[in-house]
Structures are given as structure tokens and as C-alpha cells.
């Protein structure tokens, strides 16, 4: 069953067509890779799904409900979480507080109930802390819970960012280059983590990634974008052997005998 359906999505910035009627659909429990050269429109695709950019035309449906047109916070509340290419952890918060912020949509406190610390607020705060701690344990990051988040190493910050999304119990997780800038051993850890996220939490993943080893290792299917257009879609095997993909990455073959 399709969890997320992107159909005919187009968006332009000024004269530049960032996405040109792109369609694909992601099945429940799938790990989908989005690859393509720089400027292909990959991040724009995630921005459109998460509501940061509104598509000029086309629709996005999630479990049968229309997402396109909703504000990002509504889309997040429906169960679509995302991370960013450059980590955006909140400065001035510990790791645990950052992760607790991800549980925002599940909490009910208002300024009034929070100010007077109603029993319901005290209770939900306790539960949110427990859940945040549980996710950090899942990520094997619990020993950093009380560290200032933005002082962690780059790789650790990326993990905290994933934890912050997971605590909101998303059904679909959009990851923008989770392995960028990580060492080889770290990439293996991310690979294992993504598999565990799917297996243990039943979350569908859509991820942009340049680290081909990771893409080949975890993705069930891969969508290839180039200059805003989808040029291929299929398993790792199919995509690698697709001549259009080769052209996009390496340029066309030049006959030097001429």
C-alpha cells in the first residue's frame, strides 16, 4: 500500500524550474533513496513534502489525505518528520530538551495550564522526558542527555536531530543526507540505525543521500532526480545500470576518435 504519493509536483523559483512534474510513491515500511547531482531538486522535494515550499502544481497525499497546501506544523502533526542537511539543533537547550521539543505535538500544555502547573502538565512533562530518554537510549545517545546539544560533535548532533524527530512518533521520516561528512565507521552505524528504525519502529523512510554505499545498502528503491526531473526509479541494480543515470552523473560519452 502506498504511504506517500507524490504526483506531478512542479515548483519554480524565479525562472528556475526546481521540480518539473515529479511523481513517485513510497510504500509503507519502505526505505526510499533520492539521489541526483547537486541542484537536482532533492532538498526542494523534501521541502515540498514537509510544507516548507508550496508546489506550484501537483499534489502530495499521505495515507489518502492531501498534504499539499498545509502549513509545515500541520504536516508534522500528521506524522511526517524531517531532518536537515545542515543540523538545526536548538542552542541553549540540552540534548534531552532538544529531543523533548520534538514531542511538542503530543503535549497539550497552554500558557495558562503551564503557568499554574496543572497536574496534567506535570504528568505530560514527565512522560515527554521519559519518551525522549527512551529514544536517546534507542540511539545509544543517553549518556549525552544533559550535554549542551550544540557543543556535541558533528556526527552526534546529526543523531540528536534524528532522535528529536523520532520522539514525535512520525510514520514517515524524511532525512536530508544523514551520512554527510561522517567517517566510514559512522556510515555503517547510520546504516544499521536506519534498518532498526524501520524494523523496530515501523517507520517509512525517504532519504536524500550522496554516500552511495549507504544508499545501496539500505534503500529498497531509489528515485533519481536531475535538473528537477525524475530520470529513473527502481531498485539499486536497475538504477545503476540505467544509461540516463550514468549520463547525469558522468556526462555523455565522448567519442575521442573523431
Amino acid at each position: 500500500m502506498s504511504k506517500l504519493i507524490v504526483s506531478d509536483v512542479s515548483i519554480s523559483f524565479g525562472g528556475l524550474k526546481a521540480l518539473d512534474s515529479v511523481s513517485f510513491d513510497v510504500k509503507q515500511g519502505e526505505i526510499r533513496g533520492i539521489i541526483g547531482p547537486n541542484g537536482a531538486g532533492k532538498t526542494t522535494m523534501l521541502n515540498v513534502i514537509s510544507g516548507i515550499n508550496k508546489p506550484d502544481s501537483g499534489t502530495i497525499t499521505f495515507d489518502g489525505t492531501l498534504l499539499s497546501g498545509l502549513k509545515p506544523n500541520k504536516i508534522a502533526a500528521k506524522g511526517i518528520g524531517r531532518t536537515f542537511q545542515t543540523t538545526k539543533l536548538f542552542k541553549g537547550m540540552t540534548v534531552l530538551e532538544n529531543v523533548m521539543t520534538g514531542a511538542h505535538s503530543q503535549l497539550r500544555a497552554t500558557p495558562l495550564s503551564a503557568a499554574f502547573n496543572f497536574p496534567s502538565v506535570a504528568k505530560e512533562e514527565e512522560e515527554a522526558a521519559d519518551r525522549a530518554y527512551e529514544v536517546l537510549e534507542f540511539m545509544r545517545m543517553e549518556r549525552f542527555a544533559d550535554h549542551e546539544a550544540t557543543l556535541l560533535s558533528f556526527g552526534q548532533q546529526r543523531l540528536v536531530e534524528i532522535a528529536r524527530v523520532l520522539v514525535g512518533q512520525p510514520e514517515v521520516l524524511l532525512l536530508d543526507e544523514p551520512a554527510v561528512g561522517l567517517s566510514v565507521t559512522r556510515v555503517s552505524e547510520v546504516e544499521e540505525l536506519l534498518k532498526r528504525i524501520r524494523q523496530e519502529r515501523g517507520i517509512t523512510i525517504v532519504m536524500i543521500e550522496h554516500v552511495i554505499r549507504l544508499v545501496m545498502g539500505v534503500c529498497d528503491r531509489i528515485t533519481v532526480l536531475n535538473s528537477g526531473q525524475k530520470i529513473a526509479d527502481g531498485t539499486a541494480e536497475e538504477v545503476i545500470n540505467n544509461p540516463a543515470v550514468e549520463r547525469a552523473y558522468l556526462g555523455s560519452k565522448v567519442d575521442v576518435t573523431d
Partner: protein
Amino acid sequence: MQALLARRNIVAVGIIVFAILPTFANAYIVFVANLALMYILLSVGLNMLLGYAGQLAFPNAALFGVGAYTSGLLRLEFDLPYWITLPAGAAFATLIGLAIALPALRLRGLYLALATIAFAQAALWVFGHWNSVTYGGAGFRVPPMDFSPLPIDPPTGIYYLSLIIVLVAVPLGWNIVRSRIGRAWVALRESEVAAETLGIDLTRYKAYAYVVSGLYAGTAGALFSALLGIVTPESFDLFQVIVHFCMVIVGGIGSLWGGVLGAVILVGLLEVLRTFRDLQEIAFGGLLLFTVLVVPGGAIAMIKRYLPGWNEPLRRIGKKR
């Protein structure tokens, strides 16, 4: 020794000193302490908007004025008791705060700062020129508060009323910043995009910051009109905007207890320099520069560096892990 200087102890000592002050200090000292209490409200309120939510907005001096004018005029024209005029002033200022928030929500950074300072100036103009209601530039005298049947004179009554309000308002604010509200504010301050994709409604949470901040400013204004017994436009001019801003920066931006500290420090400085009004502004400028250049986190950051027990989590610390 250091553990003795933990926040809990310092705050307890502070409360005791404020509580027994009128029994031994002269009227002038009590008046200054009362000013400090009032400025604690202003500083804590502005810090939620400026420090926590990160909105570079300065509507509070004007809202402070709205609170003062509303409660003062209700007292003067209708002879209402303080337990009506005070909440009325606070409520009306909050309402105006919300009214400013609606257009201001669309603005950011420098434009937001300019628009809200323009609002402060416009409010000042209304205070000074709407003669039939505000009595114009000369202002008006507020009949003293009547605390009967309690056997206390008005200054002592206002002092203890202010103290009680601070003892309620600061813990309430402290509860707000340690909930999902405070975390949402810090999140949208640090990255609006990230905050939004975590489900935080930016418009709603910015509006909350304006409203809460306006409520604190309006309450302080209502107390101010009773404390001074006279309301004039110049009490709410740009200098007031700068004083509030200074308190937040010098005490510690984005720190509730820093706001409390900043108010006490600056009221002290203002009083020491009371006879030299020009020096006040120079001293303010100097202190602001010193803070920004040497201790950007304000006085509270210095304390946090050297003393345990002063950190401010954005959550409640329940069971120990």
C-alpha cells in the same frame, strides 16, 4: 560555601529582605525597592518576548504606559478600588499587546524592531495629545489607593501588593518557560524552519509571547501609577524602552532569573545616579557595551559559570536519572 550561594538560597534571602524592608528602612528606600519590584515584572516579561522567543520587539514601554493610564484614569474618573483598577490596567495592556502582535507577527529582525519602536512613539503621542482623556502633556494625579479596612498606609500597601504580585508572577513565568511553551519559544528563536517541522505553530507561539509579555508590562504599569501617584507621558518615552532593554541584556538575555537580576541591578544604578540624569544615560550605554563585549550572557552567565545551582533547564526536573 558555593552550595550556600545556590539560587534557591539567594532567592530566599532576597524575599526575606524585601518582606521585612519596610520595618526598618526609610520611606525612600522602600520606594526604590518598590520600583525594583515593578521593574522585575517588566524585565521578566520582556525577556520572554525578547530573550526566549527571540522577537526583537519593543512594545513593552508603551504597554507599561497603557497599564498605568488605564488603571490611573479608572481610579481618577470613577473612583474604583485598586482590586478593580489594577487587573483592568493589566488586562487592557494585554489586549493592546495582542493587537500589536497581529501585524508584528509578520515582521522579523530589524523591521520588527522599527515597527514596535514606532508603536511606542505613537502611544507616547496619544498619551500626550489626547487631552480630553489623558489630560495631555501635564498628565494627572491619581488619588491614593485605599487599603481599608486593612490598617496600612498607601505606600506600605502598594509595596506589599507589589511584592505579592512579584512572588506570584515570577514563579508563574518560571513554570511557563519550563514547559512546552518555553521550549517552543527557544526553538522558534533558534530556527523557525526546524521549529515548524516539529509541529510548532509559529504564529500562535509568537502571539503567546506578546500576550504574556504585555500582561507583565500592564501589571507593572498599573502598580506604577499607584506608586508615583502621578501619570505623565514622559514616564513612557524612549528612555523607558532603553531601560527595559538594558535590564534584559545586563541581567541575561533568555534567562528568567537574569531578568530579575537585571531589574535589581539597573534600578540600583538609576537611583545612585538619580541626581545626574545625563550620567544615567552614559552609564547605561557603558554598561550595555561592557555586557555585550565582555559577558554577552549578562550577569547571570557569570554567576552560572562560577556557582552551581543556577542553571535553568527548559523542563521540570522530576525523578533523578
